[in-house]
């Protein structure tokens, strides 16, 4: 799926504005997200997931070919953590909560 297909979906579903308008509004959604993330702020989209900027310290890496140590500078990276809802949508065969229930049942020590 590309941005053009997202724009099509918005145009068809929301309607009542031109394709150009739909494109500009969708563009505004991603531009806004980019600006917020560039500021280091996280974005929480309920039902989809969280975009979080993490600060990484400087550390030593290695050239995988030579094994030579090379410094990896401090940096900020963007990570995405999918929501439980999205994970569930991708795994419909898994019964809702069954794993968690099975796990917590196992976790409880028999003697307690």
């Amino acid at each position, binding site marked *: 799926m590309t941005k053009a297909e997202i724009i099509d979906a918005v145009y068809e579903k*929301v309607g009542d504005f031109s394709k150009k308008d739909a494109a500009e509004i969708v563009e505004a959604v991603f531009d806004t997200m980019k600006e917020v993330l560039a500021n280091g702020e996280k974005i929480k*989209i309920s039902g989809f997931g969280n975009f979080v900027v993490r600060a990484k310290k400087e550390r*030593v890496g*290695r050239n995988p070919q030579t094994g030579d140590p090379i410094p990896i500078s401090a940096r900020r990276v963007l990570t995405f953590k*999918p929501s439980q809802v999205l994970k569930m949508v991708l795994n419909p065969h898994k019964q809702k909560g069954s794993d968690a229930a099975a796990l917590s049942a196992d976790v409880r020590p028999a003697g307690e």
Partner: protein
Amino acid sequence: MTKSELIDAVAQRRRITKSRSEQVVNTVFEAMTAALENGDGIEIRGFGSFTVRHYKAYQGRNPRTGKPVEVPAKRLPFFKVGKELKELVNATPAENFEEPSSATMDPVNVEDIG
């Protein structure tokens, strides 16, 4: 920023009503969710791409009891940040690139080299 704050920001930016902005933002994430559900990837130029990764079933262990636990096969969404956004996010500590002083490096983290 939450989804409702994103909706407000987009409404202001494009001078549209909040309810309209809400419909658009919801449709965007619904469309993306549907694509991932179908196993399709999503590519937003300048922002990033989403792919669906398949994980095989494996036998794990309950860390508390040590009992073996069957972990079923699963699909998980994976996000790879786009070049433009990656650079935007990292723009602030750019000055740190100049002189990586080896004295402050932490050799403990060697294992997780991208």
